[in-house]
């Protein structure tokens, strides 16, 4: 029977980032992935590396992780398409503009760069936005990546440190230092890290729910948008727990394509694209970018975010002392993967981490479950 220091279940962006960190620390690492490397939410999402300040804990993790991405830049292969295009949080009225100033205050307090743009300055940097926007907050060090290529990079780095990629097998049991694969293989590990995204079959007690999203990508129109453009109402939409919602989110890809989001739906667990949601999303996007209506979209797809009741991921130990989880990142798995890997390493080895791990501990799930029951 093979023995590992740590078996990581799931080769998405989070699992592979953990694998790289653990293997580099000298651990014997195995990565179990039944399907395509980075083929779940990692492949479906936008790949926006973004500061998110909806809670202090979210801001701490996204800031820590964004710094780690920036440190990695020089090492990332070209296929990762890292582009530090910055995010523009768009305000359409005085109320949203007040939010722009509040955001800048929050960031300035933490020493994070951001810049308020008025209507004129905004038009200069994004001439295809409609007339009459109020302004925006530019967060210049946010970026865009192609996440499946980043997952491949993490896994290759782990393998270079001796990690094993156990392909094509699904873990059907993970407890007491043993993982059982669907072909009957038993693997031993001092620790197991579950990083299976929306699939909670190995940790059904975790409050993670799939939240469907639609994406649309256009043909190549280089320069049509230059920053990741997000409406400030995005957070309102992202936090509406019950209703289906859409929010304007447009991203320039290195190829010149424009990637458009976003929709959020609970309860629809079919991967089928819903024309009604796509229409709502495009209508919203055209409100912001009127010229978009005459461009060609070439592909529409959907994906599932792993949503938690309090919008924070579960990172850390579980009642089984051999099992850790790194789950529930909703729309921030790409951004937060490198910081999560550091937190996981901290829980495994006691390695120092600059971040307080407490807000992400899975033990809070019992509390939130009771609150949201």
């Amino acid at each position, binding site marked *: 029977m093979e023995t590992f220091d740590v078996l990581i279940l799931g080769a998405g962006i989070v699992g592979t980032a953990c694998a790289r960190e653990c293997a580099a620390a000298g651990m014997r690492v195995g990565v179990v992935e039944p399907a395509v490397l980075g083929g779940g939410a990692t492949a479906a999402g936008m790949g926006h590396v973004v500061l998110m300040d909806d809670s202090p804990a979210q801001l701490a993790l996204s800031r820590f992780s964004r710094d780690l991405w920036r440190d990695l830049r020089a090492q990332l292969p070209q296929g990762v398409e890292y582009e530090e295009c910055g995010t523009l949080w768009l305000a359409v009225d005085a109320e949203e503009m007040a939010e722009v100033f509040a955001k800048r205050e929050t960031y300035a307090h933490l020493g994070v760069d951001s810049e308020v743009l008025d209507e004129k300055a905004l038009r200069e940097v994004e001439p295809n936005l409609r007339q009459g926007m109020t302004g925006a907050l530019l967060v210049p060090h946010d970026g865009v990546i192609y996440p499946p290529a980043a997952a491949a990079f993490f896994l290759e780095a782990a393998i270079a440190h001796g990690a094993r990629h156990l392909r094509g097998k699904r873990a059907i049991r993970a407890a007491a230092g043993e993982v059982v694969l669907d072909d009957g293989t038993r693997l031993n590990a001092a620790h197991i890290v579950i990083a299976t995204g929306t699939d909670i079959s190995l940790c059904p007690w975790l409050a993670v729910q799939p939240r469907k999203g639609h994406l649309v990508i256009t*043909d*190549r*129109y280089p320069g049509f948008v230059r920053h990741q453009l997000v409406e400030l109402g995005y957070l309102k939409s992202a936090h509406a727990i019950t209703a289906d919602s859409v929010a304007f989110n447009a991203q320039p890809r290195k*190829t010149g394509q424009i990637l458009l989001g976003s929709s959020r739906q609970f309860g629809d667990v079919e991967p089928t694209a819903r024309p009604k949601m796509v229409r709502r999303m495009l209508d919203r996007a055209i409100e912001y970018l009127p010229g978009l209506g005459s461009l*060609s979209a*070439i592909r529409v797809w959907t994906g599932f975010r792993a949503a938690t009741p309090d919008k924070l991921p579960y990172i850390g130990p579980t009642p089984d002392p051999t099992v850790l989880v790194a789950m529930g990142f909703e729309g921030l798995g790409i951004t937060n993967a490198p910081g999560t890997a550091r937190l996981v390493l901290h829980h495994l080895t006691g390695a120092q981490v600059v971040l307080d791990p407490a807000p992400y501990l899975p033990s809070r799930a019992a509390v939130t479950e009771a609150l949201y029951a």
Partner: protein
Amino acid sequence: MPDVTVRVNGEAVRLPGGSTVAAALLNAGVHCRTSVNGEPRTALCGMGICLECRATVDGQPHQRTCQLVCRDGMSVETGS
């Protein structure tokens, strides 16, 4: 149908009326578009599905040239 003349990357190409723009590009001996990796691509399916025959037609980028019939004086730019 009378012959038509279209401009392909500035060069005049004369074709029988009713020809598709993709046919004009084939006659001109140029490829239609360039892939993200810089490879030349040209019409494959001829029925509007493969999208390999896209070119800029009268200033409109990414038009499927196999689905467009040449009009006299049309201007086509390829290779984007």
